[in-house]
Each structure stands twice: as structure tokens, then as C-alpha cells.
């Protein structure tokens, strides 16, 4: 009995067990650090985000303010803001907004989209993409063209719609 206890908890066992514990600690830490190593901290990528001014600057409706510079429309409804990527889902041309008809029309092959982005006519296969939109700390709208969504049901919430009563 004494010999058994000795064998399991004696000084030799303690030295061994402590030694292995340190070893596994080192190994685990080293492995995790290597995995963390593979996540870059700095990126050499062009920015897909832009600040679009304060919400007060936008009346209800479609704003073409950023269409040329950023290829995006900012649309304000009575419920809030969303941002459409001005790229036709057919072959990638830039549609135009027609206020009087209330639709976006692509000049290349005639696709028509309504303000939420659904296809009304023409060969476009999918609705227009919405970009992620949120408010920054200094109260400006921040558009992220790297995050896109166009599925009905998902595009009206989360990061793709900024609620703000008019």
C-alpha cells in the first residue's frame, strides 16, 4: 500500500508529472501562438468603406450623391437607411435612377429594378446588392461595400438596414 502510494504520488512521480505538465503547457501555448501567427494584423487592401455624411443631410428617397465616386445609392425611407451597390446583376453595368418612374434602369440590356432592389424587367437574375451600413461614433453614416446582401428577408435587417425614424 505504502509502495503503491509512493509509486503514484511520490517525489519521483511529482517531478515527472510536473515536467510533463510544463511540457504540454509549452506545446499547447506554442501551437496556439502559431495559429494566431497565421492571422494577419495589418492588411494591404484598398478600403471598401466610406463615410457618407450625417443622416440629417438626407431627405426621404434615393440620393445619388455617392453614385459617381463610390458607385452606391443611399436610400432613406420613413423607417431608416439602406445602401444599394450601383451594379446591375446581369453583366455589371451601372444602372441609372429615374425619379419620375421610381425605378433604376440599366442602359445596357434594359433591366429595371424597384427602390428595394427587386428585378421588375429585363435579364437581371437577382436583386441589387445592399451594402452594410451603420452609424459611426461621430454620427456619420458608414457604408461597407465589402459586406453585401440581396436576399429578401435578410437584406432588410441586421447590418444592411439602419433603422431611423424620419
Amino acid at each position, binding site marked *: 500500500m505504502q509502495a503503491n502510494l509512493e509509486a503514484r504520488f511520490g517525489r519521483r512521480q511529482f517531478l515527472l508529472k510536473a515536467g510533463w505538465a510544463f511540457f504540454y503547457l509549452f506545446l499547447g501555448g506554442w501551437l496556439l501562438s502559431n495559429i494566431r501567427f*497565421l492571422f*494577419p494584423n495589418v*492588411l*494591404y*487592401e484598398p478600403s471598401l468603406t466610406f463615410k457618407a455624411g450625417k443622416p440629417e443631410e438626407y431627405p426621404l428617397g434615393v440620393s445619388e450623391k455617392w453614385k459617381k465616386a463610390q458607385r452606391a445609392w443611399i436610400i432613406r425611407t420613413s423607417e431608416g437607411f439602406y445602401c444599394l451597390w450601383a451594379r446591375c446583376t446581369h*453583366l455589371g453595368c451601372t444602372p441609372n435612377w429615374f425619379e419620375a418612374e421610381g425605378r433604376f434602369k440599366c442602359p445596357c*440590356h434594359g433591366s429595371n429594378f424597384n427602390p428595394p432592389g427587386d428585378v421588375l424587367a*429585363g*435579364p437581371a437574375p437577382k436583386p441589387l446588392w445592399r451594402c452594410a451600413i451603420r452609424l459611426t461614433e461621430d454620427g456619420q453614416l458608414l457604408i461597407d461595400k465589402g459586406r453585401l446582401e440581396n436576399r429578401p*428577408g435578410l437584406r432588410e435587417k441586421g447590418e444592411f438596414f439602419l433603422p431611423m425614424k424620419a
Partner: protein
Amino acid sequence: MINFAKQNLKKTKIWKSIFRHDFTDTPRTRLQRVFGNVFLHLHPVRIPKDAIRIVYTWGLGGISFYLFLVLVVTGILLMFYYRPTTIHAYQDIKDLAYAVTLGRLLRNMHRWAAHLMVVTVILHMVRVFLTGAYKPPREYNWVVGVLMLVMTLFLSYTGYLLPWDQLALWAVTVGAQMAANTPVVGNEGPFRLPFITPGNDAKFFLVGGTIISDNALLRFYVLHCIAVPFIFSIFLCVHLWRVRKDTFSRQTGEKVDVWPHLVSREFLAALWVTVVLFVWSIALQAPLEELANINVTPNPSKAPWYFVGLQELLVYFDPWIAGVALPGLIIFGLMCIPYVDLNPKGVGSYPRMQWSRAGPIPLWTPVERPFAVNVFMFGIVLWFVLIFIGYYCRGPNWEWYWPWEEWSHRRISKLTLKNLPNLWGGLLLASYFLQGVPIPNTIKQRLASRGGPQAPAIASRLFHGGLGLVMAVALLVPLITAPDPDYPARSRYPTLFAALGHAKNAPVVMGLYNLIERLGPAWGLPVLSGLIGVGGLIVGGMGMKFARFKDRMYEELGLIKYAMVMGLFLLMMGVLGKIVLRLLFGVKYLISMPAFNFNI
């Protein structure tokens, strides 16, 4: 005179220090040739005569290994002229084609050897399965092999990006998007952990950034040239060692010397593979499209052929299912095979086949191991059918084009697809999976003691028949009676039946609709009941037919193994079922909960 020189050469000390045996053909030297050579001594010295019959292994494992060597050699040579940056990569590939001696041939050989290796590795897996060479004691080696299959596909995937042309960029984009859809650790997958963002999810890890650019190219280059080949080589050592240690799977009859009999055949196989590769590489050019352009997406943009089956699955399932869950389950399922197949028979020979019939349809079925062989081959065939569809039958906007049809970018076809109401879809899924529940012997005994010797069989029939009816009800009742939630905003018809009945892409529903239109609305209920009855009986009948086999499997395997086998089997058939439901019935999702980003 040459003989004289040769004789003297062989007497020198230098020669004798390298070659410790002479080259006469005696049993002793034959032994020494294999035993005393580091490359050859992986082989045993003598081997069963059946092991050199080509129609047993077809040399597929060896050919795969040889192709790996070809890829390493051609790859190293190509590395001398290739720089993995977005500015230089495309130009370097062009230079190899136009300005480097033998460059075009080497690049072609590398490309075609890679595709050939994927094919031979899959065929090797099929061969090992059919000859039962995964059964104990070879289970571990099978698992190692499955992991090597995954690594082969990953090597091919990472290599695909390196030319940096449109094909590369967008094929990799499709794959990286699947990484983003991984559950838990992907930014767009379900059950996402709260701290996961596009800046630290699985796609970010794979691609080294948020877009596919220089970081991704360098990462894939390192993975492709060093990291994965290194790990693959370690697995290869274990795999070959295990082949040797577990002994060859066909041990009948006499033994023959490895040198010369096996080695000569290996040499011939390598020779002919090289011939085929050469001819192929001279005749067919490896493709190279325009320079990668992140602003222009080709339409359609397809993954390489071995992944285009998964891309086709994306039509029927959400990305996290088609791209992550299903492939994961396939790999898990493959690895499980040796541990759930408790039948010790069938090792060392192909299963005997016979002609049988399923009703009027003639079938060529295996006599031994029918469940194992049929299910596995069904899976393989399904995989290649999906590849065929994705490769030849999908055009711009991933629309259906028959292989002989010309692709048109002016075609507009709006598919009408409807979701089943969640409760009905849930009922359908539940009753489908419940078909797999076994009736254990204990319960059968209790039934027999209560109701007589026929009771268990009747209970089983009622069980399966009942579930079949429930499935038919769960599918047909909502299809015919449920209202269309898209009406009137996005649909012209108030019911699902009317909407799908007018849709060209739901032939079965359209046929039903036209039938009821012609017969008159009074016939609606009788037709519906008739269909439910027939459909239920067919589905339930299938369950009834295999009920005894199912219960027996449960008794043999025990609960856990049975659950795994039946679960994976039902999932595989469920994939097929969902494809049928979508293509023939116009059903999009059985359960749809957009709030949770969960759609099945």
C-alpha cells in the same frame, strides 16, 4: 572492350561501397536487391502471386504515388520560373508557355498529372472498398487514406489559384465563400460565435485577408508547394508502411520474388502513365484565361471539376450545408466505414455480381455485402452525376442547359419555387428520418407475447406504412391546399398549387394541376387521397421491404453504430430526395427560418 571495363569497374572499392551485392540473378541477389535498397525495402522480399495480378489492384495506389512524384518534380522545376505575386504570377505563366524551353510541356504535365491524380486516388479508394481491404486490421490505414484524399483535393485547390487568371480567382472565391459559411467559425455561417467578424473568421484565416489578393496568393503558394506536400509525405509514409505491416489483402497460393516480378510491373505502370501524360500534355494545353480581375465576374464562374459537384449542391442547399456540412459528413462517413462494417467477409476479392430484378427493371447487384457495396457505389455514382450536371448542364446564371444547347446571356427564365410551410416540412422530415428507427428484438418479443407470432411483422408493416402515408400527406396536402404567402406582392396566384401548377419548372405539380383542371374541382379530393395512398404505399413499401434487414443491422451493430450508419444513409438519400423535390415539384425549402439564417 566495354565488358572488360564493366568487369573492372565492378571490382573497384567505390563500386563495392555503393552496391553491396552483385547483379547475378540468384535467389540471394534477388533478396538483397530489395532488402538492401532504401527505396525498395518498403516492399517485402516475397509477395503472394495474386498481389501482382493487375486486375486486382490495377496498380492504382502505386500510380497515385507515381503521379505525386511527377507533380513534385515538375512542380519544383516550375518553381524556378514562377513568382507568387499578383503583379508577376500571370506573366510568369505566360513566359513558361512562350519563352522557356520545355516550359509549356512542363506546365501542361503538372496540370494534367494533378487532374489524373485526383481521378486515380478516387478510383483507388473505390477499389479498396470493393475488395474489402479496409476491414480489420486495415481500418486505420483506410482513415489515413481518406485524409490523403482530402489533402489531394486541397493541393489541387491551392494550386488552382497560382496562375492568377480569371478562372483561378473566381474558382477560389467560390471555395473561400464556403469557408465563410462554416458554422460557428464562419462569418456568414449559422450559429456564429459572437466575436467572429470578417476580420477573424475561417475565410480570413484561409485567405489571409478579406479579399483574395496578394496575401491569398502567397498563402496558397506556401500551402501548395511546401506545407501540404510535407504533411502529405508523412501520411504517405504511414500509409505505405501500414500496407506492408497489415500484409497484402489477398493471401492465397504461392509466393513470388518481388524482384523482378513486382518491381518490373511497377516500372511498366510508371512508364505507361508517363507515356499517357506526355501525349496528353503535348496534345492538350492547360487553360489560361484573362488576368484576374476582381471587378468582372465571369458568368458562369465554375469551380474545378472535382468541386463542381459541391457547387451544384449549392442550388439545393444553403452554402453552409452544401459547402461545409455535407462535405464534412461525407468525409466523416468515409472514415467511419471500417468501424461500422462488422462483416468480416469479402476481403481479398471483388464482390460477385448477378443479374436480378426490381419489378420490371433489371439490376446488376452484388451477391455478397449487398448493403455495403450498393450504398457506397450509389454514393460514388451520385457524386459523379452531380459533377456531370455541374460541368455540362449549367450555363450562365447557373441555369439549366442541356449539354448540346448553346449558352445565351439573353435568356431570362424566372423559376417559380415555393417553400413548404414549416410545420408540414418539419413533419415530412421527421417522418422520413423516423423510417430509420429499428424495432429491437426486445420489443418484438413483447409484441409476440401479446399478439401472437405474426404481431411483430404486422407492427413493422404498420409502422413503415404509416410513416409513408404521413410523408405523402406532409408533402401533398400543403402543395395542393396551402396558400401562397407571396400573393399578391410577388405572385399572381393565391395558392401554392396554382402558382406551381403554372410553373414550367415543376413538371409533376404542373401535370397534377392540369389533370385536376381537366377533371373538374369535384375530383380534387379523390385524386388527392388517391395520390397520398399510392405515394404513401410506395414509400412505406420500401421501408417495409427492408424492415427486417434494418432490424437485423440494429441487432448486430448496436445503437451508436446503427445510428451512424442509418443517419448517414438517410442523409445521402435525403440529398437525392431534396434534388428531386426541387427539380420536379418546385419545392425550395422544407423548413425556412430566415431569422436564424436556417433553411433546409
